[in-house]
């Protein structure tokens, strides 16, 4: 790889939110990843946050509930104010159920789709609901890099913190797909992770991270079940990083990113 022109951008992890199968929040996920608690795989429970106005709460789809829940957990754990924090939303796809119903209607005799279904189909639906729920007027970047969406979001968030010298909330999330899309995109359940990245250490920093592209292979997880989770839901490609944070270890970990490149992430406690 070409030698970088300057040190790679770094940021402090000042808040974390996690929601996934049998992982209802970061403290539970942290205990599992640190080996303090056994993991029991249970279907991810998604609830629309109370913070959403009633109309939006009624209209919110699975991917939106997931993204908002983890974002709020990360912000609350850092006692931060969401209204002025820039966000990066990254997901390998939109809401699979919403997409399925749209495509089914468009393939039917009556193609009149519901306006709510349509606005929920935009990739930035979660960012829009977040902005409304949190009163957040700061910019949102909304990204997709298929299976590498977590890595793409991490690069964008690190670049934002480095360039803007202000906090950035990374929200990486993926929800499951129904058939027949599931056969071509077998995401089995919902998983998401939110990292509040800051230029200075917060009250309870979880470590300092930086990232660079590498051709080295990605780290796997020793636990076969957790490794299956890592490989089956794109946002769970973050698990080796979360494990390092949970264990309080410093060092270099490698995350899956694109076909031709992985991300080497240096974690410093």
């Amino acid at each position: 790889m070409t030698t970088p022109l300057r040190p790679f951008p770094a940021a402090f992890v000042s808040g974390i939110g996690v929601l996934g199968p049998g992982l209802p929040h970061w403290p539970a996920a942290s205990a599992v990843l640190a080996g303090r608690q056994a993991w029991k795989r249970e279907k991810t429970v998604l609830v629309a946050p109370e913070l959403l106005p009633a109309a939006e709460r009624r209209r919110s789809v699975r991917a939106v509930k997931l993204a908002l829940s983890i974002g709020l957990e990360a912000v609350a754990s850092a006692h931060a104010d969401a209204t002025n924090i820039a966000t990066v939303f990254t997901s390998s796809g939109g809401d699979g159920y919403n997409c399925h119903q749209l495509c089914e209607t468009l393939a039917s005799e009556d193609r009149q789709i519901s306006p709510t279904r349509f606005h929920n189909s935009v990739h930035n639906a979660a960012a829009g609901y977040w902005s409304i729920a949190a009163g957040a007027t700061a910019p949102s970047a909304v990204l997709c890099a298929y299976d590498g969406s977590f890595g793409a979001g991490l690069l964008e968030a690190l670049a934002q913190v480095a360039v803007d010298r202000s906090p950035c909330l990374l929200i990486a999330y993926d929800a499951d797909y129904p058939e027949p899309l599931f056969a071509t995109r077998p995401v089995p359940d919902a998983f998401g992770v939110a990292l509040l990245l800051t230029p200075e250490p917060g009250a309870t920093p979880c470590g300092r991270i930086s990232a660079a592209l590498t051709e080295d292979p990605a780290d796997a997880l020793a636990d076969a079940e957790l490794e299956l989770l890592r490989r089956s839901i794109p946002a769970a490609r973050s698990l080796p990083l979360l494990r390092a944070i949970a264990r309080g270890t410093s060092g270099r970990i490698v995350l899956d990113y694109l076909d031709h490149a992985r991300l080497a992430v240096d974690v410093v406690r």
Partner: protein
Amino acid sequence: MYFRGTVTPLLISRYTATTCLGRGLEPLRDALLAGRSGLKRCDFETVDLDTWIGEVEGVDDETLPAALVDFTCRNNRLAQIGLNQDGFADAVRAASHRLGTQRIGVFVGTSTAGILATELAYRHRDPVTGALPADFRYAQTHNPFSVAAFVQAFFGLAGPAVAVSTACSSSAKAFASAGRMIAAGFIDAAIVGGVDSLCLTTLYGFNSLELTSSHACRPFDRARDGISIGEAAAFALLERVPDSAGDVADDAILLLGVGESSDAYHMSSPHPEGLGARRAMEAALAAAGLSPADIDYINLHGTATPSNDASETRAVGALFGATTPCSSTKGATGHTLGAAGGVEAAVAALALRGGFVPAGANTRNPEPGLAYVLATRTQPVRRVLSNSFGFGGTNCSLIVGRAK
């Protein structure tokens, strides 16, 4: 007020746009100078809506290279047509040779990518199992990343690649992401693009919201009644400005500032006073170190829906008053959704290079409150502000200018 850090200026060393007006910059410039529209009554696919569209001719005839055949869909065909105009592909290959394949990032804005492929596949499900046809390729066609992956593979690049998908501000915000990645040192140059193609989701979707017009769209006209959906592929090659001033031509095109904001108001309606839009324009001016008086022309988002243009009128009026010449070029190109920011950055560059202020086609009787341009006029243009706003209240303003 949210201030972004120092990202700009950056050099836009090459740019191109393919719209319903034709392939590449020349037909776009000719149409802008003539005030001509490329819209037509909708005859796309099996769509039975009373609306107008901006369709690029001959997209389905485009063939992708054998190694990339799995990416075949209307959206990637349109992307390839776009990449092959105006020497853009050669400029990327030269930059790749100069900087290294890992040092060039790919940032493509799209709202629906190749979802048309899925819409068509759903018509051919197995009658017993419900399965989609065996030749359906989700990752290479429907997924938002498909177009960024295609562009990266087309050039054999090996740096970061990402799709930026914030509905109708997507490709404007792709400039913001690319600029930050260059400023942070992850990359040295970026392909920034916007590609969106006609599909049933957007035609029936905007129709369900009663936002499509049964006429060719008339931005800012008092009689405006909705959008005309178009399709486009626009690309720019973004690089650091050379350290030596002598290496920058006087008519070089620079990205001078980017400003972004979120409305925090409604999923499918803009803030009525245009507060988010105004904040994005203010942030772009702050990033560029400019004041409103420094802007010679504003390319408005101007979708021609009653609410968008009213909201944008208030935002622009509050910041610029009624003196800065402005227009929406969507009457000529249609609303190309996720590609609009890229197309309109190319329009800005053409205005800067050619010294003209483009009129908004189809508009006859504009709303009061803005210096809306009804006939294209020749005059020196040094700096252009271009607005792009999207569903979910996502706003982005770009400022593009001449080096001198």
